[in-house]
């Protein structure tokens, strides 16, 4: 992988800070969220122009060839500004799945389109039985003449409402050896998409695949490598979520510090109450724990791309830290923290969603134990 040179990296970070500072007002965000398509389409084009959509992809696909830490830097800033554009869904999950899979033709045709802001492939792996485990799925792919027939249902497809394509995981029955997990590429108009807004201002969908037939060119992985690709993509996804969470927590902590310094009760700023001070210290510690663990995980990811334990621990920490910081930010803001009008509640809800997506704390602690 070609890493960004220092100059490009600084330019990138600069462009992100500038863009978000100039364009990402919380009150405008509420308007984008409430209208179709649930985000600002102009932003997406600007993301493309600024090169962000190509950040992790190879140069031959029009990308910048950045490494994971570049992506994490971006996600942290997105978390800070509560960015609602489906960057993780499209670039981090859908795009990465295609990039890591075995189908070069598909990658060559779709990734440049993604990078240009035209195609929005989204990963559809979760099912009502999976609860975080990508290898526990019921969607099936059965051989038909010259292709595959997909049947099943996918839930909680983040960004699914906006997708142009889906990368769908399925139990593929190829020979007598029993099914293996493979990935398939499906166009959004080939299956039934039930879209809905989610509580964190994003969009999601349920997909129904009732005898969706695709030809062999849509098969993205071979020899059961779908499971491995999913694992890698989700592990990267968890790092991206953690980075976003760190950014959100930084903002939340800052908001809480500012609010408690201004808000007065019993004649003094409430920041003068030791109990609240220590609460904010524990928020700080929770945030730092995730930040440091993410840093350590990302540095080891560079060295070896398989780290089931690290990523499971990271997600568990994300659940713990996100919950604590989110809940306490609301608590310390009091009533005003419970309103839709203040951004604090929206950060809290986003952290809640990040905790629930891709398996909860208990699931990941089990996964980590198994990998100790």
């Amino acid at each position, binding site marked *: 992988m070609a890493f960004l040179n220092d100059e490009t990296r600084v330019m990138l970070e600069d462009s992100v800070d500038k863009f978000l500072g100039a364009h990402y007002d919380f009150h405008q965000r509420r308007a984008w969220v409430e209208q179709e398509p649930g985000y600002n389409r102009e932003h997406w084009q600007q993301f493309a122009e600024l090169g962000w959509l190509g950040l992790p992809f190879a140069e031959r696909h029009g990308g910048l060839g950045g490494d994971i830490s570049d992506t994490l830097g971006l996600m942290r800033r997105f978390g800070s500004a509560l960015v609602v554009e489906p960057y993780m869904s499209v670039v981090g999950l859908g795009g990465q799945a295609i990039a890591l899979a075995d189908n070069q033709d598909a990658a060559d045709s779709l990734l440049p389109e993604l990078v240009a802001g035209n195609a929005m492939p989204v990963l559809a792996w979760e099912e009502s039985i999976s609860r975080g485990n990508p290898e526990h799925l019921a969607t099936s792919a059965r051989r038909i003449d010259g292709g595959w027939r997909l049947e099943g249902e996918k839930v*909680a497809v983040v960004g699914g409402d906006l997708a142009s394509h889906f990368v769908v995981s399925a139990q593929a029955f190829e020979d007598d050896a029993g099914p293996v997990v493979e990935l398939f590429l499906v166009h959004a108009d080939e299956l039934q998409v039930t879209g809905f807004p989610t509580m964190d201002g994003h969009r999601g969908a349920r997909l129904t695949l009732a005898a969706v037939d695709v030809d062999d060119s849509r098969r993205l992985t071979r020899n059961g490598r779908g499971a491995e690709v999913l694992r890698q993509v989700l592990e990267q996804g968890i790092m991206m979520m953690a980075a976003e969470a760190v950014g959100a927590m930084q903002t939340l902590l800052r908001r809480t510090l500012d609010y408690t310094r201004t808000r007065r009760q019993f004649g003094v700023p409430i920041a003068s109450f030791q109990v609240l001070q220590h609460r904010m210290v524990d928020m700080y510690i929770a945030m730092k724990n995730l930040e440091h663990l993410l840093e350590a995980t990302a540095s080891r990811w560079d060295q070896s791309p398989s780290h089931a334990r690290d990523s499971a621990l990271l997600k568990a920490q994300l659940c713990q830290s996100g919950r604590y910081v989110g809940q306490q930010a609301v608590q310390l803001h009091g*009533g005003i923290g*419970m309103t839709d009008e203040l951004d604090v509640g929206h950060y809290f809800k986003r952290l809640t969603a990040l905790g629930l997506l891709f398996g909860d704390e*208990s699931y990941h602690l089990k996964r980590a134990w198994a990998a100790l």
Partner: protein
Amino acid sequence: METKSVDLQAFRQEVRAFIEQEADESIREAGRKMTSFFPPFEQCMRWHRKLHARGWSAASWPEQYGGPGWSREQKRIFEEECRIAGVPRLLPQGLGMVGPAIMKFGTDEQKRRFLPGIASGEDFWAQGYSEPNAGSDLASLACRAERRDDHYVINGSKTWTTYAHHANRMFLLVRTSNEGKPQQGISFFLIDRLDRPGLEIRPIIGLDGFPEQCDVFFDNVEVPLDCCLGEENQGWTVAKYLLEHERGGSASFAATFGMELNRIRERAAELGDGFGGIMRDDPVFQQRFTRLYLEVAALDATESRFAAMEKGSPESGPMSSMIKITAMETLQRITELAVEVEGSPTLTLQLAALTVGAGVAPEGPEQALTVMPKYLNNRAATIFGGSNEIQRNIIAKMLLG
């Protein structure tokens, strides 16, 4: 003994039959779609009026004001049957708060004017305590009323007034004097009409996307002098009485929480654990569930002790704070577990499906519909009604003298 126990059995049957017959589908839907302390308004008030028609709306009121004259056992049975049937709890602002305050501090005229409408459900009272700059710190109230000839003029604002946008009446604390200690210049007002000029109500959208609380603004709002409950400048006494009445409450948190836990356990038996097994069989789930069950058992024991305790005894204040602390924290942990049990389907925002009577089917499992709004809304459980930090300050004061 024999006769009495037969009576109670019969009473239970009577209650059950009444609920069976009178609680129609939309009232039950409102019960199922409760996502905070406060049930959906319209259906709840309709249920209130139906109960009143049967003489049962004001279960704990004295008979002279329209209470049914039930024994403690009967009240318990009535509550139990309501809980089991899942009908909405009646709103407490009138029956549990201002009503008892009027009985204790009101003039005969005030009692005559206001109590019947509370009992019948014809009136709904909003509670105006909090202000933008006085949350748990009532002593620093700024909303003020000045006497002018034969009326008061109110200026200022109130916030976190539940369902004020549905209310036709309002009780509130206002500053009527700046002399003496800050608490001494406060009066307790009863406002008989909310369509008075200068009075504006703006709903606040909550974390779940629905309005429940409101801001209320007073811009030279005129009210008659007889709106004062108790003496002028002595509103603190009324408020304190009412707070104690409210905090301890007669409602059993433990019983309600127990039902929530049962529901979670039932769902755990239906959902997988992500590894091919059933969540109910996962020892990690079991341990966490049982911890919460223990919390509820301890809360239940504390509530029993509190119920048997004389109101106003030295321990009853701290004990009611302890109940507020432990009940609200347990409630939050229960809603948290419920979210994790249902998992990612709870992320779907379902404003339409949550609206009673809209006839919109939920996306995903029905049982997951209310789980996230409950989690979100109940973050307020440790904030409103005197935050848990304030409750701990109260106990600390008792302990340290």
